[in-house]
């Protein structure tokens, strides 16, 4: 018998060495018992008639372009041309940035007269709506652009003539109480 040094309990010879084998054997026995248990032998699932005859061709049609022809998994020449194109673009962009001036040109560098002359010479193809999208409302000094100063009376007159439903204005509801 094997003796444990720390306490006086003993175990049969070879108990731990054979434990795994006995356990596996018992689990195997319980499998046999399971097959004789109350668990149904089948799970009750069915398929539409002829399903397995048609699913094969369906799968094959999604993995080949035409009969007998296989979609190439990799196209090496295209891969190399693409990689070369990307590399060329990167070299050009990097080269341009390398040679670029350190001080970028800003609008402050341009005189107002130069800006005016640009707009007079180049009729903008942008509509007023498109311009409004890119220019912040705060930046626009409306009275700088109009011959007459815009007052509340003008605004109300415009709204009265051009707005059918006041809800279109999306005005916030103000609680005057």
């Amino acid at each position: 018998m094997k003796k444990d040094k720390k306490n006086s309990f003993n175990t049969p010879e070879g108990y731990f060495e054979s434990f795994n084998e006995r356990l596996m054997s018992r689990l195997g026995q319980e499998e046999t018992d399971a097959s004789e248990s109350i668990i149904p032998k089948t799970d009750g699932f069915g398929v539409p008639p002829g399903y397995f005859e048609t699913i094969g061709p369906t799968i094959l049609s999604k993995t080949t372009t035409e009969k007998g022809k296989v979609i190439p998994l990799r196209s090496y020449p295209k891969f190399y041309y693409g990689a070369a194109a990307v590399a060329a673009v990167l070299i050009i962009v990097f080269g341009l940035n390398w040679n670029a001036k350190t001080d970028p040109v800003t609008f402050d560098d341009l005189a107002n007269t130069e800006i005016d002359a640009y707009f007079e010479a180049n009729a903008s193809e942008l509509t007023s709506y498109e311009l409004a999208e890119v220019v912040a409302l705060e930046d626009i000094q409306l009275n700088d652009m109009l011959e007459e100063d815009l007052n509340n009376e003008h605004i109300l007159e415009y709204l009265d003539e051009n707005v059918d439903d006041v809800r279109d204005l999306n005005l916030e509801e103000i609680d005057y109480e």
Partner: protein
Amino acid sequence: MIAEETLVQELKDQKSQAKAFEVLVNTYKERLYWHIRRIVLNHDDADDVLQNTFIKVYKNIDGFKGESKLYSWLYRIATNESLTFLKQKSKKLGIGDQELKDRMVENLQADVYFEGDAIQLKLQKALAELPDKQKLVFTMKYFQEMKYEDISEVLETSVGALKASYHLAVKKIEAYLKAD
């Protein structure tokens, strides 16, 4: 039936790939379908996942290194596709995994492709209560009669752990079926 090694070689060869893939589909479509069906329960969902599985197999066949058996690899892809499908479904519906499983089992009662009786329906409810892996072990062993060694390759779990898991699954299912 074509030897697995030969089939793998033909699948990797561009000239014979199409024909070999057809053989692969015809050989494994039914087994994989039932494996998937027992996970997703619904025929239409199983049909979708089965097709996605084979498409994935087709696209990744060059990456199959042959370290495991071919069908183990197929089963692993099918299992992952099924579980991913369920995760996506639960996310789409905005419900948890367990609630989805419960709903799927409830839907079986009205499912035209579920021909089970009351005890078979109750079995599905019992299976829905098991952890995913334990349910897989049970269905692969009990219904598909796979060997533990093969299940071990698919689920990447030791044979001993699988046997213990199966034993526990049987106990839980029996207790559920006996309860009112």
